[in-house]
């Protein structure tokens, strides 16, 4: 049967059986064809050799390794860290004993914002969204009995304080007597997205961007095993951005960071292989798979063409994935296990290197131990019981997936061009361009739900009337704040104040001179200066940043 005849059959079928929606489109509003075939694919200008290639070869559409998960599964991480250092230490030991291979250290908000636990602004937030860290002392307790080289990787969400956390890890490594060549720290250290979505900034964008690159520069010279920056699309996605916007924003931010690093005289091939990217994975399965494939290809082309990278490693993008918070519902929370499973499936079919699954109760609280275990076991089930990891890029060659991959790339490239015309990522963010686009998309998403155009099971359809939401909420132990503050005061009484003063003075001097801040920060950490004290010194030089209300 030829295509025309089939089109007639199709019309007849719609006529007889109706259609669920007048128009079908992806999350990013890419209009979908009735069915994908060679003709549809060719409309996107698909070129087998240039666009696809083979796994582990340029442009890495099909994955960064030739054997993908046939050699080894992805890294299975779970986000953890809460309350005080002792509780986090306990949770870390538990997760390691259950076969987790990487640790992710969540920091409470005062820590992330350089506010000491005893400051008024910290009141009520100490130990809430993660663990409270004031100084090296807390790091010593968190990793008590856990040598830094025991997990495959240690990941931390420090962004505004990214280089300070790096300094703390280096100081801790020295104290534990472990050579930095033997362990691997991954710093998120991506400040630009904070102005768009998560809001955990301290200083203005321009000095903050340079501060982030201090860590990249320092690691490139001295600690090549570390991953000094993870460029994140996931938070902007959670903040409302579509899949296409997530890709374009993340890669535009990557350009801003790489430009700064290259501007300092770093060779692209010396640091690009250690950059990681972090993306989200909401529920629109095929668009998500295509998104990862498009993202990898765009990264590869950008590194090769724009930055003249020579090493294939520079062109391979290591992608870490977090499943998505906004797709989860507080209603019928067990359903979130299913959602997380599908999202995780999308990340694996898309070829992710590292995956963290949300726990079903995260929509109402920090995960309980049982929920965290189910989330980790979800990964083990997908890895070991389904066979999805047994072939590299199993969806490659699908007319639909390849069409979507091309379309996402095309649209994201056009948005990146718009951002360049605004003067690049930093300027576009300062003027609220990213924020405006993603808030608009978030508003539309909400309206679709309220109008019933988008069905969320248990929320606007298939509701359980009179539902009793029974979630075993994890509670931060009462009195955490008091204990943390006591410890902070004890530390301040015990340490050598002259040494702290000297180190903080040196930090100010070196930053004012435009030197890399890391050597001075490491000395501050070793002298048990607090993160808050270091930030106050930096704020004196750079000033502090406040959100513009014009963004909505």
């Amino acid at each position: 049967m030829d295509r025309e005849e089939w089109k007639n059959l199709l019309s007849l079928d719609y006529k007889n059986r109706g259609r669920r929606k007048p128009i079908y489109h992806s999350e990013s509003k890419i209009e979908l064809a009735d069915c994908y075939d060679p003709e549809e694919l060719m409309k996107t200008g698909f070129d087998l050799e240039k666009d696809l290639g083979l796994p582990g070869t340029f442009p890495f559409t099909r994955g960064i390794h030739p054997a993908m998960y046939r050699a080894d599964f992805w890294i299975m991480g779970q986000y953890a860290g809460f309350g005080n250092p002792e509780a986090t230490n306990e949770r870390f030991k538990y997760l390691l004993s259950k076969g987790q291979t990487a640790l992710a250290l969540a920091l409470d908000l005062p820590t992330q914002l350089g506010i000491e636990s005893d400051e008024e602004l910290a009141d009520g937030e100490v130990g809430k969204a993660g663990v409270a860290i004031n100084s090296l002392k807390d790091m010593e307790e968190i990793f008590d009995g856990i040598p830094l080289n025991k997990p495959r990787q240690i990941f931390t969400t420090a962004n505004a304080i990214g280089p300070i956390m790096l300094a703390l890890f280096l100081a801790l490594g020295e104290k534990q007597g472990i050579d930095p060549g033997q362990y691997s720290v991954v710093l998120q250290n991506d400040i630009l997205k904070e102005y768009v979505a998560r809001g955990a900034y301290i200083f203005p964008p321009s000095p903050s961007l340079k501060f982030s690159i201090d860590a990249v520069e320092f690691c490139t010279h001295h600690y090549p095993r570390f991953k000094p920056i993870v460029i994140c699309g996931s938070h902007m996605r959670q903040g409302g951005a579509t899949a296409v916007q997530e890709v374009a924003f993340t890669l535009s931010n990557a350009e801003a960071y790489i430009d700064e690093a290259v501007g300092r005289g770093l060779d692209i091939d010396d640091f690009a292989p250690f950059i990681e990217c972090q993306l989200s994975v909401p529920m629109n399965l095929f668009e998500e798979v295509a998104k990862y494939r498009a993202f990898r290809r765009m990264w590869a082309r950008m590194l090769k063409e724009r930055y003249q990278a020579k090493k294939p490693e520079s062109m391979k993008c290591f992608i870490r994935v977090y499943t998505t918070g906004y797709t989860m519902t507080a209603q019928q929370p067990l359903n979130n296990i299913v959602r997380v499973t599908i999202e995780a499936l999308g990340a694996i079919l898309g070829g992710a290197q590292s995956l963290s699954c949300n726990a079903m109760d995260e929509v109402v609280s920090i995960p309980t131990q049982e929920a965290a275990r189910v989330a980790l076991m979800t990964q083990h089930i997908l890895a070991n019981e389904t066979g999805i990891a047994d072939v590299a890029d199993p969806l490659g060659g699908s007319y639909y997936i390849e069409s979507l991959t091309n379309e996402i790339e095309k649209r994201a490239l056009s948005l990146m061009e718009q951002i360049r015309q605004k003067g690049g990522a930093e300027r576009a963010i300062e003027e609220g361009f990213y924020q405006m686009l993603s808030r608009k998309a978030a508003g539309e998403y909400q309206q679709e739900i309220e109008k019933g155009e988008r069905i969320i099971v248990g929320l606007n359809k298939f509701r359980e009337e009179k539902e009793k939401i029974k979630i075993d909420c994890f509670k931060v132990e009462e009195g955490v704040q008091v204990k943390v503050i006591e410890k902070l005061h004890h530390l301040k009484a015990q340490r050598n104040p002259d040494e702290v003063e000297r180190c903080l003075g040196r930090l100010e001097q070196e930053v004012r001179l435009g030197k890399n801040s890391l050597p001075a920060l490491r000395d501050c950490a070793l002298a048990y200066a607090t993160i808050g004290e270091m930030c106050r010194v930096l704020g004196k030089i750079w000033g502090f940043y406040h959100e513009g209300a014009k963004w909505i």
Partner: protein
Amino acid sequence: MKEDRQRARVLVAKIGLDGHNRGAQVVANGLREAGMEVIYTGIRQTPSSVARAAIQEDVDVIGISSMVGAHLPVIKKLMKELEALNASDIPVILGGIIPEEDYGPLREAGVSEIFPPGAAVKEIVQYIESIVKAKEGSGPAAGSGHHADTDHQC
């Protein structure tokens, strides 16, 4: 609603350090689209700055968004600030990630209504309209726990 006004005025704020402002901004936009006047304060406000802004802007309702579990102390402090400024009659509504077991203490502290994850913006609009109307009629004793489904145990 204040008599000389055609539209309800609502202050939407995030108190504390959390910067997850998607919810606050979606609600702020939704209320605006429903014809209300919205004053959005941005993130990292303090209880006293919110109380002062509410009085300066002469709002009918204060909406607080909380995502990281700091809601109870934050609300208590806000209520104290409002009381100190003789403004306890301004109803306070709360949205975000709030475990149900905190509903009781939050209401005791004076929160008029709580909108959990998944609440529709139109529910919030309706609720605000109902309390400003009640306030118009019968003075400040507006809105206390009218929802039926608040007996959930966590």
